Structure formats: C-alpha cells, structure tokens
C-alpha cells in the first residue's frame, strides 16, 4: 500500500512540476524582454523630449537675435533688447529668452554685444533661474564702416556673429 502511494505521488506530480517550471521560465524570459524594451522606449522618449527642448530654445534665441537686430535699426540701438520677456513655443515646448545688451567702446571701436539665455517659460516677468538655462549665447552685432557714434540711436547691422553658444542638456 505504501509502495503504491509512493509511486502514484511521483507520477502525478511530475507533469505539473514540469508545466510550472516551464511557465516560470517563459515568464522570466518574457519579463526580461519586456523590461528591456520598456527601458529602451523610455530612453528614446526622453531623448526626443531633450531634442525638442533644445531646438525650441535654439529657435527662440534665433528669433530674439533677429528681434534685437531689428530694434537696433529702429531707434533702439542703445537698448535693443525687447522690453517684455521674449517667449516662443516650438515642438510643443514653450521657451523664454532673457536678453542683456552691452555697449563697449574699445580702442576707438564700438562693440555691440548681446547675451541671451533661453530657459523653459516662466510665469510673469520672472527671469530664468540659475541652472535652468538650456542655451546661453553671446552675439556680436557688427556695423559697417564708417562706425556709428557710441550714442547713436539707430545703427545698421551688416552681420551678426555668434561668439559663444553653450547648450546645457
């Protein structure tokens, strides 16, 4: 009797254990593959967001560079940065650009430089917080000879030169 029970227990459990083992193995392999795929998809989505943010900031600064250039020829050469914070939305990302302008007399030449900082749009008139900038750029506005006077309110800009362009990802 005991021999019969012993034998029957062995035979009944073998297939079930085999099935359970197979299920566990397949489950582990599937979970591993799903985890890897989810991770790579998440990474790609993150890279897409970073790319969209970067090109939105690039476009916003480009627009502000043109705006400053236009202001310099329209009677605001001494303070050409837009009075309101410049904001622009591209690729679904709203960007704010802070602008500061410096007028430097140097060995008889006048340097007209603007510094731009692009960051995610802030509410109201809040400036870009330290560490939140996406792109920092310094741009030199070149005027043709003869050079206009230091205090000229309208100047002609023939070229813009990007002196520095720093992308903070």
């Amino acid at each position, binding site marked *: 009797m005991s021999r*019969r029970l012993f034998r029957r227990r062995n035979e009944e459990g073998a297939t079930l254990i085999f099935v359970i083992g197979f299920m566990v193995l397949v489950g582990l392999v599937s979970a591993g593959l799903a985890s890897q*795929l989810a991770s790579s998809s998440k990474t790609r989505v993150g*890279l897409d967001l970073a790319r969209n943010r970067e090109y939105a900031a690039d*476009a916003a600064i480009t627009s502000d560079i043109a705006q400053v250039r236009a202001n310099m020829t329209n009677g605001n050469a001494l303070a050409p940065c837009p009075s309101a914070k410049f904001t622009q939305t*591209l690729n679904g990302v709203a960007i704010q650009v802070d602008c500061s302008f410096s007028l430097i007399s140097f060995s008889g030449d006048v340097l007209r430089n603007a510094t731009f900082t692009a960051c995610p749009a802030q509410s109201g008139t809040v400036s870009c917080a330290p560490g939140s900038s996406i792109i920092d750029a310094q741009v030199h506005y070149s005027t043709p000879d003869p050079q206009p006077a230091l205090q000229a309110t309208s100047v002609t800009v023939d070229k813009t030169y990007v002196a520095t362009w720093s992308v903070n990802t």
Partner: protein
Amino acid sequence: MPRIVGHPVRRFANQRGETLVEVLIAVVLIGAIASAYFATATTQTRASSLNRELVQADAVARSYVELSKAVVRNGCTPGSPFTVDTSTFPNCYTPSTPTSGPHQQICPTTTQPQIIDLTVTTPDNTAAHLSFEVLAP
C-alpha cells in the same frame, strides 16, 4: 497467478488514465503558454524594431537640421528654396519639408527667421517630426 494478473491490470489501467489526462492538460497548457510567448515575442520584436527606426530617424532629423543651418550660413537667396545634401543619409529614411505654407524650406532674411517643419519617414512608414528655425547671419 490470479492475484498477480489482477492487481497489475487494474493498477496500470488507473495509471494510464491519469497520465493521459495529465499529459493532455500539460499539452494544452504548454500550447497556450507557447502561443502567448510567441505573440509577446513578436510584439516585442516589432516594438523594438520601431524604436530602433525612430532613434535612427532622430539622428537623420538632427543631421538635416544642422546641414540646413550650414546652407543658410554659407549664403542663399532670401525667399528662395534651398536644398540639403542627403546623400550620406541611410537608405529608406526620407526627410521632407512642406512645399507650400509658412513653414516651407526657404532661405530666410537677416531680420526674419524661417521656421521649417521637418518630417522624417522611416522604412516602416512611421513619421518623426521636428520643427527648427534658421536665420541668415
């Protein structure tokens, strides 16, 4: 002899019946699990392929944008369309821009930047979009 013949015959009959049921259940279970596994694996393979293509499309889009900026920087006629050399791009990844409308690929002026909508189509016909801006120096 009758004891020897009787017992083994009944026991073998019981064992055969249970084993058959177990095997049938196991076959059904294994079949179901294998089907689910292959369905999952197929989905994962397709998703992985799509993911890889989108990453490649992103690289193509970035390259296209930088080449466009270089074309504008090197000089082009404001208001006229310009072309970008895409000969080095991988096959089956097709960049395209609108041929009409405000965001088409035309050369900007020094005061008016041009926003360009770029679409890169992957071999699987998935589209990746990126808008960018160019400005004449």
